[in-house]
């Protein structure tokens, strides 16, 4: 024990298990085609980073001391988790923006196509 305030073992185990479950769930979602790889990569990265930080207690403590977190190293876990959640949300915002643009284009094309079809069928 280098640091008086290290990461408690139980917390490390619990956090590792939780992160592993995240990775497995993401994997299963891709496998069953409910999640595209394109949108899963960031989730997989999140899960893997959290697994590493949770399981590798020395590493977590070291990073915490670099950052000047003296009292409670697992706080770094929360910070990293939060950072990734923000990244994923931001990514989703860009995806939603693109989807809504494309949706407008589709609706417009459909309206034009319908007009063309009904013009055609109304002529004898």
């Amino acid at each position, binding site marked *: 024990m280098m640091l008086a305030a290290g990461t408690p073992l139980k917390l490390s185990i619990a956090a590792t298990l939780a992160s592993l479950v995240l990775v497995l769930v993401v994997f299963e979602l891709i496998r069953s085609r409910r999640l595209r790889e394109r949108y899963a990569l960031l989730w997989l990265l999140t899960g893997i980073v959290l697994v590493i930080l949770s399981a590798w207690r020395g590493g977590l403590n070291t990073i915490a001391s670099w950052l000047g977190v003296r009292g409670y190293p697992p706080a770094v876990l929360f910070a990293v988790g939060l950072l990734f959640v923000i990244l994923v949300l931001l990514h989703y915002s860009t995806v939603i923006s693109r989807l809504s*643009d494309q949706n407008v284009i589709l609706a417009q094309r459909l309206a034009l196509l319908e007009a063309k079809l009904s013009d055609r069928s109304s002529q004898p």
Partner: protein
Amino acid sequence: MSAERRIAVVPAFNEERNIARVVGELGAFDPELDVVVISDGSIDRTAEAAAAAGAHVLRLPFNLGIGGAVQTGFQYAWEQGYDLVVRCDGDGQHIPAELPKVIAPVVAGEADIAVGSRFSGGDGYRSSASRRIGIRVLALVVSGIARQRVTDTTSGFQALNRRALELFAADYPHDYPEVEGMVMTIKHRLRLVEVPVQMREREHGQSSITALRSIYYMAKVLTALFVGLFRRNVVPLEDSGRRLDGGQPGAEVPALPAPERR
């Protein structure tokens, strides 16, 4: 077998400077070969140029990416009842004079899909170091999965029969379709062969893969390949279900199976 109907599927994104020549060369090489150009949300005059050159044109309302564009062409070919499909890029990279080599194994019934490879013939095809390493790694990984030596996993110069067309019209990878498509082919127990061909360097425009994105590209492709191995098949395997078209060319064309969703 002159009754076989053949079509070239040519995806093109902002290729107004190349597309007319590509369509013209395909037509000049084989007048029996129909051509469908998929303008993938192009903002230049790709679609007009292709239509003027005598191709059928499908205009996508926005950019779907290479996989989505090619699949649109496959769906067109499937619904129109074509027996043989050639996939060929819209940038002039693929040389129509090399077509017979790619088509031959499929016409002879030796393969369901034939892929033109730049590397298996040992003919000098230059590209950047990072791309060459990427190409090597992918070739190794795919060869391992396929238990069959492949050298060019990113080649878009391919010929398909109706069995392979059925699979790809129903389910085609979106982001990096050539690599994943090869693995899908193997997983569905279709016969794949590689044939050595020559390709041209790109003439105008930029390749969609830049050196900087290589690492991101590799991470994505390898993840996709790995997960793809475990994924459910959309089109049932030959021995586990009936064929959609009964294997009869000219039989009534059924609707495409919808991708499975849960």
